[in-house]
């Protein structure tokens, strides 16, 4: 992953540029000490002066009104908030007319930001005050008074707290309770810039000591960047939060969540005062001290170890998973042409061809035999067998943040909302989910016929939407929504990828890192705990095999539904120790029993964990009990027999279950089965489920 930097030849500003903001994916506003507000269009490389302000107008920060995507509230959305060095903040509309100027601080007003819900704004000044104002510019409260200047202040993503800098400390203050303050020393020098990402709720701070540090909301350090020679003047999260960019004197650096540097560039721009990401996360604009506004594209995003934009889930032929897609040019996906022969074999076509798209490509997802590519305006679905005839559909807005793939449908997360399409490009459903920009990888999960989302407001609540599948298309109103409530904040969810709708299982990780599993469609869904201290989970895309990652081991739960019986659960669980996982490891996928783990340093670790159990599960899913039995007899593995026993019991295959239980020494179960077969052989087919339930409850 690299930054491709471009600037206009001549600077359009005549003084230091202090702030930039993206309007939409192609428009950028910039404001400079020459009192001008400029608007840049990146498609036709134009630059237009929107307004020239008064001679004493020296901007310090700028913030665009958040695009909430809710058209219900008809306020004027296109307003810009600019704070200036004379202690005022100004609300400016997109035509450059100042709608309101309010004196907010003594000395300079150093920072100003709209709240994410658009209800108010905060300002911080040299006088040490942090104030909150209504959206019309009326003072609501002075939240903070101190004797040191507040260089930067940010809203929390839920607008319920603010984060501000105080010397070398960071402080989080919750708005609804006066006492709750969380303050910690973050840097050795002054903290100049902070950013707070809505996706994973992590905070990043950059200081005069040359470090950028990532924190969670409790002030624990998550990671730290390398040391820079000059103070860091700007830091910004990418919208998805999987990387951030930091600016310093003559330096711009792109890093990932673990603080590892992807790319370093040293443009001779002077200090970079402000950096802003476009909402699709592929471009950024930076305000430079040498009067330039610098634009950068993220190129060469590979499907290798690092991206989260690519999903390698699911899958047919092993070969095309090695497919690396590079963003080489802006509107072009180019496959590496270094080895055309390989490409032929990979793709099963005669030549290595390259795909051209009319617009800039933003997101790519690969899996389930399809390649889905989202450009600014459209979405292209390529079937891997008929590569050159993609199905296309138009996107609502050009800021797509995520594509999820499942067996039968695609979920597209846009700023305007979440929509589910079939692979034929037909809109299946558009569930109403508030604030889709806060949805991250962990908070949404797509199954073949269900979509689960952690509720934005109440993170203990999970909403599961049934998606219309097959030929019947229901209107979006009668989508059935199941609401599951956990006793604790849920941090990560995953839906099982196979099986019929009424057996759909949801695995969830809560804030304590405990793993629970629940069958969604039960009348009284009950959470069964599978284990503690799980870092990351994923379902196999072909079977009901759940894999979890612990700090020092990887665990596969072959029959998560056996969680009702703890001893069965232990019998059907496979675990393997691994070391050197590094920081923040995660599970990428599991395929034929081979788990792919992404280590902290970005490398992929493939471990053979449960190849036989997965094979067994495949046989059972295909109702091939003889084959399953044969496999177990051949391999003679206790876990395998246990899996077979549990599953055969669940699927009413009593002879199979009997043999299997005998081999795992569960003799009471064997006797019970024998009793059932002798006593009521004729009723077995109907009463089995009932019986099994009574047994389970014992």
């Amino acid at each position, binding site marked *: 992953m690299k930054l491709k930097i471009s600037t206009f030849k001549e600077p359009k500003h005549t003084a230091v540029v202090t702030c930039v903001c993206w309007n939409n994916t192609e428009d950028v506003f910039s404001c400079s000490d020459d009192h001008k507000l400029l608007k840049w269009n990146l498609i036709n490389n134009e630059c237009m002066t929107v307004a020239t302000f008064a001679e004493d107008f020296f901007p310090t920060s700028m913030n665009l009104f958040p695009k909430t995507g809710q058209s219900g509230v008809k306020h004027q959305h296109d307003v810009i908030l600019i704070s200036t060095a004379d202690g005022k903040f100004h609300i400016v509309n997109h035509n450059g007319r100042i709608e309101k100027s309010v004196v907010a601080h003594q000395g300079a007003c150093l920072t100003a930001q709209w709240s994410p819900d658009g209800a108010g704004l905060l300002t911080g000044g040299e006088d040490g005050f942090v104030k909150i104002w209504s959206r019309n510019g009326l003072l609501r409260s002075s939240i903070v008074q101190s004797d040191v200047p507040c260089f930067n202040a940010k809203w929390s993503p839920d607008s319920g707290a603010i984060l501000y800098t105080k010397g070398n400390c960071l402080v989080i203050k919750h708005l609804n309770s006066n006492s709750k303050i969380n303050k910690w020393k973050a840097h050795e020098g002054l903290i100049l810039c902070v950013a707070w990402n809505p996706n994973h709720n992590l905070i990043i701070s950059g200081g005069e000591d040359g470090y950028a540090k990532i924190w969670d909301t409790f002030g624990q350090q998550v990671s730290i960047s390398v040391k820079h020679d000059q103070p860091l003047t700007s830091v910004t999260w990418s919208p998805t939060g999987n990387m951030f960019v930091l600016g310093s004197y*003559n330096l711009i650096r792109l890093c990932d969540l673990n603080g*590892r*540097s*992807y*790319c*370093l*560039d*040293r443009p001779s721009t002077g200090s970079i005062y402000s950096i802003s990401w476009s909402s699709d996360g592929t471009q950024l604009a930076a305000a430079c001290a040498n009067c330039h506004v610098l634009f950068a594209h993220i190129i060469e995003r590979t499907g290798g*170890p690092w991206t989260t934009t690519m999903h390698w889930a699911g899958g047919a032929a092993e070969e095309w998973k090695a497919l690396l897609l590079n963003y080489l040019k802006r509107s072009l996906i180019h496959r590496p042409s270094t080895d055309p022969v390989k490409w032929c074999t990979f793709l099963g076509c005669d030549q290595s061809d390259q795909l051209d798209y009319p617009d800039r490509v933003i997101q790519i997802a690969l899996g389930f035999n399809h390649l889905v590519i989202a450009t600014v305006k459209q979405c292209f679905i390529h079937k891997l067998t008929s590569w050159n005839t993609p199905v296309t559909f138009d996107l609502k807005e050009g800021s797509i943040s995520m594509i999820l793939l499942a067996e039968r449908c695609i979920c597209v997360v846009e700023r305007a909302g979440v929509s589910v399409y079939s692979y034929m490009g037909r809109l299946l459903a558009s569930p109403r989910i508030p604030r889709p920009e806060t949805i991250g990888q962990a908070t949404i999960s797509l199954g073949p016929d269900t979509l689960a989302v952690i509720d934005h407001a109440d993170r203990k609540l999970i909403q599961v939407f049934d998606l219309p599948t097959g030929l019947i298309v229901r209107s979006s109103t009668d989508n059935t929504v199941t609401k599951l409530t956990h006793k604790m904040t849920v941090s990560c969810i995953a839906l099982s990828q196979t099986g019929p709708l009424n057996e759909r299982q949801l695995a969830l990780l809560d804030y304590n890192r405990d793993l629970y599993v629940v069958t969604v469609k039960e009348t009284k869904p009950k959470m069964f705990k599978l284990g503690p201290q799980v870092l990351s989970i994923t379902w196999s895309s072909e079977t009901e095999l759940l894999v979890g990652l612990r700090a020092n081991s990887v665990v596969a739960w072959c029959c998560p539904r056996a969680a009702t019986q703890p001893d069965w659960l232990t019998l059907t669980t496979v675990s393997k120790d691994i070391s050197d996982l590094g920081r923040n490891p995660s599970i990428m996928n599991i395929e034929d029993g*081979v788990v792919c783990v992404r*280590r902290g*340093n*970005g*490398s*992929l*670790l*493939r*471990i*053979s964990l449960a*190849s036989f159990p997965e094979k067994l599960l495949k046989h059972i899913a295909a109702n091939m009990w003889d084959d399953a039995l044969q496999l177990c007899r*051949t391999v003679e593995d206790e876990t395998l027999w246990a899996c077979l026993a549990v599953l055969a019991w669940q699927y009413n295959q009593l002879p199979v279950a009997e043999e299997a239980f005998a081999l795992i020494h569960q003799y009471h179960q064997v006797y019970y089965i024998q009793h059932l077969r002798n006593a009521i052989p004729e009723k077995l087919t109907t009463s089995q489920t009932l019986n099994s339930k009574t047994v389970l409850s014992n």
Partner: protein
Amino acid sequence: MADELEKAFLYYDDINKIRVVDNTVLKETEDLKNNCKEYETKVEDFSKLITSILATMSELGENVEKQKMAAIGAINLLKSVTKEREDEQAKLQAEITYKTSELEQLDNEYDALQILEATQNETIEYLTQLR
């Protein structure tokens, strides 16, 4: 006669022409005139010389100024080159760290894959033995 004329400040010269000025004076006057002319030419020569010197000097000055500027420029360039080199070095260093980490990753991946291969071979062997 001559004396009388002399009283009226009139003189004869050698060829008996009547004159208002005394012979000797006349001669001296003429000498003076010649000398003056000579002096004038000399002064003119001198001034020419001086202007030419001045021109040369100023030319020299300009040259010096130019050279001075060039030298300053060169010094600055040298300085900036050093800085550029430092930048370049930092950039390359970053590249090196990046590549090293990439290498480390690939190494790790290779090791993991080798282990995977070994386990898979083991499984294959185990299964073939069963037959």
